[in-house]
């Protein structure tokens, strides 16, 4: 059933042929394809396939149909009077809208790009197997679900330390039939698991690697944001229908950057729309225990195949990030987002773990929504910014990018300890 005509994808910010976004002022490049020659052919295949796919009307229509009817991408935009009241009331601060991608199949924005990537692997690359990695398993769950539905084998690499943690999403990944491979390298967390997934792909070029965010070597950042941008395209149209105009401010949390990229992409050329990316300040940026790559002015490095801002020490060893939100626990940010930051098109803010946790409790109690803890970082920062702006003519769009079932145990403990 056709609920709405989804605006087709339009390329607004193409990288160059090598997958770089270049800041014209500084000459700084973001993206690229820094990887062992073993993976170059795999990437070229994905690159060529992706180009073909984006011109293949049958593929695009088939994918859209599945996204609409299986993932349920036509989620509502909810005007939140409760948040408006908290920020000072509509008359003072304008209107607040929540894009409800928490209502997606598998409860976050992730399934959109995950399903699209697996659908692409099946129909364009004719792959029979998917390789991916995971930290907190939001991505793994989404990829495993897509593989189950589309009949592909699914191999998930997870750090042994992460694998030992109680995780609803990991359990669901297993129920979806994925093969879970524990990685005992290095810190035994997300980064070595990502490396392990890439290495596994090295050995198995017939498989396809799927990444959980707008990261990795070209064409992954381009491909993931292109697939994910359907969220933003729908939201932009919905906002237009609802308010008759563009939102003044768009807010999204930023781990790797996929949900920020997804919602903000269609506004890149609408210069009047402010875009805010929110990172996790963890225990505070000055503590060093955070995941605020851009807000903390992390230098540029080459991580997992791409040039982008990276948390690392002065020898180039990647630093681990620290945050309550496992979905934000990543030491880099996708290259296009870094580029957007470098040209000041996206402004960055950071929310501490404590602020996010309090926001989580507030959301439950005042709005009846159980948000993913990741989404609480953006809600907190958005409310702060909205209060500061104090402009009743503005419409604010916040990406509520996930549902918090997997955060319940920790958050209930927090609630009981702090109330």
């Amino acid at each position, binding site marked *: 059933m056709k609920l709405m005509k989804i605006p087709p994808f339009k390329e607004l910010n193409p990288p160059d042929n*090598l997958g770089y976004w270049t800041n014209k002022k500084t000459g700084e*490049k973001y993206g*690229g*394809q*820094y*990887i*062992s*020659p*073993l*993976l*170059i*052919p*795999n990437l070229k295949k994905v690159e060529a396939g992706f180009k073909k796919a984006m011109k293949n009307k049958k593929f695009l229509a088939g994918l859209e149909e599945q996204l609409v009817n299986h993932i349920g991408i036509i989620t509502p935009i909810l005007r939140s009077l409760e948040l408006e009241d908290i920020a000072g009331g509509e008359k003072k601060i304008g209107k607040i809208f929540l894009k409800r991608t928490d209502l997606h199949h598998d409860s976050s924005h992730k399934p959109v790009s995950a399903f699209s990537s697996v659908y692409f692997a099946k129909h364009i690359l004719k792959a029979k197997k998917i390789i991916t990695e995971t930290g907190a398993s939001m991505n793994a769950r989404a990829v495993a679900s897509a593989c189950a539905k589309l009949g592909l084998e699914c191999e998930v690499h997870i750090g042994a330390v992460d694998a030992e943690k109680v995780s609803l999403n990991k359990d669901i990944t297993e129920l979806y039939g994925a093969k879970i491979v524990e990685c*005992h*390298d*290095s*810190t035994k967390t997300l*980064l*070595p698991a*990502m*490396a392990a997934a*890439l*290495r596994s792909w*090295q*050995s*198995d*070029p017939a498989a396809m690697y799927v990444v959980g965010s707008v990261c990795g070597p070209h064409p992954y950042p381009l491909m993931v944001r292109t697939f994910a941008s359907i969220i933003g395209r729908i939201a932009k149209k919905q906002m237009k229908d609802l308010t008759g105009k563009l939102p003044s401010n768009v807010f999204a949390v930023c781990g790797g950057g996929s949900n920020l990229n997804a919602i903000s992409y269609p506004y890149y050329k609408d210069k009047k729309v402010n875009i805010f990316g929110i990172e996790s300040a963890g225990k505070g940026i000055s503590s060093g225990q955070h995941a605020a790559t851009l807000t903390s002015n992390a*230098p*540029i*490095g*080459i*991580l*997992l*195949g791409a040039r982008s801002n*990276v948390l*690392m020490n*002065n*020898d*180039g*060893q*990647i630093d681990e990030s620290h945050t309550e939100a496992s979905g934000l626990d990543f030491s880099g940010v996708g290259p296009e987002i870094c580029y957007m930051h470098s040209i000041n098109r996206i402004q960055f803010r950071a929310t501490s773990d404590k602020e996010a946790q309090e926001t989580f409790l507030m959301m439950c109690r005042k709005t009846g929504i159980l948000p993913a803890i990741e989404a609480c970082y953006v809600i907190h920062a958005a409310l702060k910014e909205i209060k500061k702006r104090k402009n009743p003519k503005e419409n604010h769009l916040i990406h509520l990018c996930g549902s918090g079932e997997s955060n319940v145990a920790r958050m209930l403990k927090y609630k009981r300890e702090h109330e």
Partner: protein
Amino acid sequence: MNKNFQKVFANAKSENRSCFVAFVTGMDPDYESSKKILIELSKSCDVIEVGVSFNTSTSDSSIIMSANDRAIKSGARTEKIFQLIKEVKNEITSDTAFVTMGYLNQIHVYGIDRYIKDCKKSGVDGCIVVDSNNESPEDELIFKGLTKNDIAFIKLIAPTNDSAYIKQSLKKCSSWVYIISYAGVTGSKDVNLDNVKKLSKMIRKQSKIPIGVGFGIKSQDDVKKVSKLADLVVCGSSIVNKIKEGSQNGLSNHDLAHFVGEYVNNLSKGVKH
């Protein structure tokens, strides 16, 4: 071609054999042991690849990742590896060539120019940068810098690479080219001779550059087989495993170096046709 490599190849040619290349992670398990190991290995190896540890490498096997972990724990950093190579070179008498093997992020952070300068200063004869894309601006800078300083830029070529890619690589490659014998990670499978033959043929069509082969070579017998097809035979994981074994068994620096040296010496005999 880098002068030391000229000597290395000449020596081998004079003995009618291929060159033997050992890979070890620099500073595995620690600075002093590593130094002794390198000195010991220099006695039987034509070339030593010294791994510069990167904690988030995308192409190393778990064996090498854990060597990297040990090295980083012992304080490995880029400048330390240069110091190590310099000190080793000062102490050895052989013509053994030294190659750094690492990832671009550290070179980038170190500064490409500074990296090359320090290569020169510490006597590094060649560089392998696993994830340096041929088409990237960094690759271009490294290529130019190394060339100017007469240091080899050793490119990796995989069995899955097409002829266009090979051509592109060979353009920047100097002293020798490194063939990866199979699509996989180091030490995970047996050396694939068919791939080597196919790749050699493709390379030979375009260039006379000496060909090295690595991945999956773990016994003297493997070395023998490969040496029939290649100018250089690279052993890595099995040597790294020996280091781990020896140091886990609590051998002293001195004993560890001999333990590993003996093992490598034995391997290296495979290159004699």
